[in-house]
């Protein structure tokens, strides 16, 4: 692991972030806003920070985004 990777993993996101439960609650809306390019981060504050800090939720986000994209948006 590089120095920056260790620091990113250890210290996590600097700003306020959602919990895993709130992240799951908002995940479908967030994905659709991201795919529609509709200011997802402004409309769901704390989501991006959580996805930077939580590897499991970040994987769930990428999976849903990619599945919705594959199925036609």
């Amino acid at each position, binding site marked *: 692991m590089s120095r*920056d990777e260790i620091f990113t993993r250890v210290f996590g996101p600097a700003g306020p972030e959602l919990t895993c439960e709130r992240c799951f609650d908002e995940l479908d809306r967030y994905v659709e806003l991201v795919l529609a390019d509709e200011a997802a981060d402004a409309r769901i504050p704390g989501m991006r920070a959580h996805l930077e*800090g939580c590897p499991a939720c970040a994987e769930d986000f990428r999976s849903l985004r990619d*599945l919705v994209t594959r199925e036609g948006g």
Partner: protein
Amino acid sequence: MATALMTAPIEISWIDRLRAGGPDGQAAVADLHALLLKAARFEVGRRVAQLPHLRGDDQEDLAQQAADDALMAVLGKLDEFRGESRFTTWAYKFALLEAAVKVRRRAWQGREIPLEDEAWRALSDAGASAGRGAEDAEMFTALGEEIERLGPRQREVLVAVALNGVPIDVIAERLGSTRSALYKNLHDARRNLREALAERGLRVGTGREEA
């Protein structure tokens, strides 16, 4: 991407059909299960590299189990669907979560969680090879000391998830906890480390962010 307003009739149709009861309701549940199975197969398929020993039949079993569990979750939460996304997007996430958790746990079945010593070695190796001078060496030394000062649960979760890359769902299963509860431990550990290092006058930053 359609808006919630544009897709509203379709969303109402899904909910109404699932609540219809009788043959129509059963047909809607079967359609939903097929939708969830598609999502579960998608997730298992993209994670198959984590399970090289798993045969095709086992992968399908995993997807079927995930779809079955997701179906129960979705049917139990129909009242919580707010129509802020498509029904299908909302439903997919349950199947993806069930499949991802099952794959992660299967991939770690029978494996020991890496020891904390291995994390210290990774830390010191990174510190030695960083090549950024005395400031980094001081930071890595202080970081190691402050991690040792964390409470046992915070240290355990931080080391396992953040340093050793163990999936948080795997740790949750071993500790009889939940992803959300353990992430709270991780979040608190990170905050405590930031504060402790700041008190030492050390600047925490990765180039993208600073505290």
